[in-house]
């Protein structure tokens, strides 16, 4: 190892600090793009929900028992949200199945699976404050308010309240409920016993081409990020080509050379990813979950490392 480096250094062929910094910057840039796209996707879908009274174009209305409907959605592995009016159209209970689009939350946090009776309330909703926190009451039931509904204080959801109540699942009453999720209507309509009707309300998004442009920009951005990750991986492998070749000539095993290069690249990219992930987590609104940041950082990181390994392997197969 030392011999290879000193030999390469002697001939001016060592991996320079400049090359390492450039590679890291390139990886960081790609990871940043990916993370920003993740934040945009969440904020955009939350904005869209806020503009349409928490409903997406996939929302359907039907009669049924909440527990039954949730069970069927879970069996079909559909990401969906079930909404039931509790006290008029402005106060609704929700049950999330899988990972539906995040609710538009301005401050605080959104619901967690292990929550008890909690609520998200718009700024104008009638809540009460005491020493133990902020509360919203429906009859005898009290719900702890854990977040503000609406991305901003002056929101179309200022009067709305969304409740999370695990007991809803055990309620045997047949109620009118809304199921919102891609493929949910198909998953529930199979046996012909459930009347399903598309929610017919128009949305503020329909006033522009937001519904068409936004997914396209996300797709283009993700493609850009993936192409960038491949470029970063190739560039990182190329910056180590001479050193890798010298090592190969000196008898190092091909696999160990590839692994060493991939580890070096992924370490520097991971360092960049860590910083970017931390900044994005701190700077992003509550609608953007930590898990999403993790995915958006790890995907390009893995792609950069894999591309580096593949390029190095192909390079080392050639004759030096």
């Amino acid at each position, binding site marked *: 190892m030392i011999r290879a480096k000193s030999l390469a250094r002697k001939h001016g062929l060592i991996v320079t600090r400049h090359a390492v910094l450039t590679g890291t910057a390139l990886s960081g840039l*790609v990871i940043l793009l990916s993370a920003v796209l993740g934040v945009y996707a969440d904020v955009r879908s939350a904005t869209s929900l806020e503009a349409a009274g928490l409903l997406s174009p996939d929302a359907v209305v039907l009669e049924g028992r909440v527990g039954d409907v949730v069970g069927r959605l879970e069996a079909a592995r559909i990401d969906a949200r079930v909404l039931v009016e509790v006290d008029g159209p402005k106060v609704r209970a929700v049950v999330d199945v899988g990972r539906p689009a995040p609710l538009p939350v301005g401050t605080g946090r959104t619901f967690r699976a292990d929550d008890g009776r909690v609520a998200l309330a718009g700024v104008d909703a009638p809540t009460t404050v005491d020493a133990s926190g902020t509360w919203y009451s429906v009859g005898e039931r009290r719900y702890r308010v854990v977040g503000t509904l609406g991305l901003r204080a002056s929101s*179309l959801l200022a009067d709305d309240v969304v409740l999370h109540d695990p007991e809803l699942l055990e309620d045997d009453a047949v109620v009118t409920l809304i199921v919102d999720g891609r493929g949910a209507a198909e998953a529930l309509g199979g046996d012909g016993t459930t009347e399903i009707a598309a929610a017919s309300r128009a949305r*503020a998004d329909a006033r522009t081409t*937001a519904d068409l442009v936004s997914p396209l920009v996300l797709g283009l951005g993700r493609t850009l990020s993936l192409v960038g990750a*491949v470029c970063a991986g190739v560039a990182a492998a190329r910056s180590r080509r001479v050193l890798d070749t010298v090592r190969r000539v000196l008898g190092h095993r091909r696999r160990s050379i590839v692994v060493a290069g991939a580890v070096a690249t992924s370490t520097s990219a991971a360092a960049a990813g860590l910083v970017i992930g931390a900044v994005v987590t701190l700077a992003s609104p509550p609608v953007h979950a930590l898990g999403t940041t993790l995915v958006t950082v790890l995907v390009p990181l893995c792609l950069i490392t894999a591309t580096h390994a593949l390029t190095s392997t192909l390079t080392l197969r050639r004759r030096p």
Partner: protein
Amino acid sequence: MTTLLDDLRGTVLLTLAKSVLVGLLALLVHALLAFSASTAAAIDGSLRESAGVEMYGVVDDLADPAAFEEYRRSTDGVRAVARFHDALAADDDLALLSVFDNALPVQDFTGDERFAHGYGTGLSTQQPYEDVDLGATALAVSSVQLDRATFEFSDLVVEDGPGIDWDAVSYETTEVPVVLGADYREVHDVGDTFRGALYSRPMTFRVTGFLPASASIWYQGELDFSLSRHVVIPYPERIADFPDDEADFYGILAFAMTNANIGVPVGTSEEDVLAALEDAARASDFPYWRLLGVPDYLTQFTLTRALVTGNLVLLGSLVGILLLGGTLLAVTSTRLALRRRRPLAAARWTTGVPLRDVTAGATRCATLEHAIAGAGFLVVSVHLPYLDLRATGVVLAALVAVALVDAWAQRRRVRLSLLERTTSPS
């Protein structure tokens, strides 16, 4: 051709990667321009500043059902309500917005249950039934009846067909023109006629056009009440001169049209609105009215306008970041390619090829990169779900400009690198 292949030797992947990057960036700019245009159209159209009005509601004050029924059955009473409506509609200082979503029984309806009144709202929907007024099988479909002021205030446009000739709208003619929501395209064509019963009176309706899929109006507290599955029936502009033997029908019509919204410019006092209504009531001899405040409209209007603008800012920020990142990646791939092409350029120059001819290789490569990007952009952009020829033209012009700058920069870089090598002390 051979020279171009020589130029590309060893940099084919980098050239393609850069072309893909530039093509993606062009599509992103195109998307942003198209979105800006649609946002501007919304802000200047249905969300224009002049639509941000103070909204009031005017309703009849005949709370007792018996008194209401008696008044509605009296020809003089109905004519008074109709005159009250006409006086308010003629007042230029306010906009009387009459709209009502009464179901319309349609004879032998050929569409499916999605058009039935109440469908999709959680209400039970009716099945086809024997309608007494039509004397035939009918389905009660979703319908709104609205006046010209509401149609124009909501910035509704008719996409196909001649649309409604508002000056000629009358319920005493043989056919009443209607426009249909976008989903009706699969049921009717422009020019089709069908029979229906408006407020229990059989009429023949002629389809004069379709609304866009996004068509919506302010109705019952909703800024975006969708009309995609509605039959839109126009109200006549004036109704006071109805035939005496039609008092029953015009009684329903006059009350439906008078229970309306009133839009006035922001800043107009409630006293001014009350004074206008009192004048109309005095002139028409109709004292049974009440004014309601409808603050939701302005709030929803303002927030929706902010939301639409916010969407543009959000998308603009994202595209800005992507452009910055994509440009850095494209510059990096250019530098890598130039580094790989340098030995060939040096060899050519050393063997006596003039500097201008050597650097021409950079121009050829840059032209090829941007030509591939431009062709890819054109192929994809014509298949996009939204067509914006202006944005396509602007992006193509920008691509040509970028190609020229890039060719000049690459050429300069090759020349400097060659001169640097020859003048270097080593």
